């Protein structure tokens, strides 16, 4: 849940919630039907939407091995699911909290960063054509958070990219 909302429930012993605090809660609750409705559409149309994205990605990178494109697509599908969940609970931090220590290094290790960058553009374009600007405004914070994680150079060039089962067992 959005940390501002979650904070409302933390200390019942302190005092009753004030008018502006209850207002924050009301705003979230009144936005819920829209969020749930959009979430359901994202769920129902996942395969269709992502298949169109996959086709465009393959056209854009005909020379890249299919395995690599699949890897990037899997990560993209996963990110859209995280972004959708973040949209549902109004908390883009969900993406960063769950994936900040994991996603950048995985993307680095599989060397899909440039493909991922193109993939996020395709996802955004594809989704913007299908959903309303208001819906996109709800989904974008999560998507952008995921995109930043993949694009971040903070992850050091991790040595894991050199590690494979064979190299590790053959090491000694």
């Amino acid at each position, binding site marked *: 849940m959005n940390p501002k909302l979650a904070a409302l429930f933390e200390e019942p012993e302190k005092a009753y919630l004030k008018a502006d605090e209850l207002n924050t809660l009301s705003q979230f609750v009144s936005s819920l039907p829209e969020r749930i409705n959009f979430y359901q559409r994202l769920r129902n149309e996942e*395969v269709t939407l*992502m*298949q169109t994205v*996959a*086709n465009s990605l*393959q056209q854009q990178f005909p020379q890249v091995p*299919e395995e690599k*494109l*699949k890897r990037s*697509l*899997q990560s993209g*599908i*996963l990110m859209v*699911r*995280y972004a959708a969940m973040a949209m549902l609970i109004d908390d883009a931090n969900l993406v960063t*909290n*769950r*994936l900040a*220590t*994991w*996603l950048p*290094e*995985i993307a680095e*290790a*599989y060397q899909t960063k440039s493909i991922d960058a193109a993939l996020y553009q395709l996802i955004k374009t594809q989704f913007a054509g299908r959903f309303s600007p208001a819906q996109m405004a709800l989904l974008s914070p999560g998507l952008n958070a995921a995109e930043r994680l993949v694009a971040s150079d903070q992850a050091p060039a*991790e*040595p*894991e*990219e*050199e*590690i*494979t*089962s064979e*190299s*590790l*067992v053959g*090491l*000694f």
Partner: protein
Amino acid sequence: MISVADLLIDNRLPSNYFVSDVYVRGTLEFGLLENRRGDRLLALPDALMKSIVAGLNQETGQATKYVLRNCGLWWGKNFYARFCEELSEYYQQGVAELPMIEFVKALQECWRTHGWGVLTINTDYQTKGFLMIEIENSPFTQHVIQRGQPSGALESGILQAFFSQLTGRDLTCVQISCESLGADCNRFVLGLENRLQAAEALAEEGQPHTAIMQMLIQ
């Protein structure tokens, strides 16, 4: 053409299994802290770690580090089995088929979520037959076992047991830098016993880790 439907095995995609807000939970009304599959976890207070080292030092003197190392070896053996079990359950495939990148990443996240510090695998010496594990913010090396000596006996044991089972080789692990002696991180070097014989004495002499590695790879 790539089929998106085929990418979704049982409609799911594995991600960060050990992420703390999902991994650590509990049945706290019964006083149980648990992981996401219901195995019991314990919060280990720093004062207890300190007491264990102090108690062992008092009762066994110089044997403390051997006792702790032995505990680490037992722990590592069990930890490896449990770790693999959890991962294969989550990924719905055997650990042997899991890409090594994901396996290593999961190990790092597991370490982090348990509060054991930040673990990195350094493969700079891979071609020379050594693997180096670097751990920052370790809770296990905070308390000095013997003045002026590395204090990661427990971790040496766990890493030795873990990587021996992973690689199917009988490895040895020697700590060559220690946070308790002012180093930026704890460094543990793993390799075959006959190639690591000199390392322990060099570390005890207080040689810097770079010099130790130079000697080892000559």
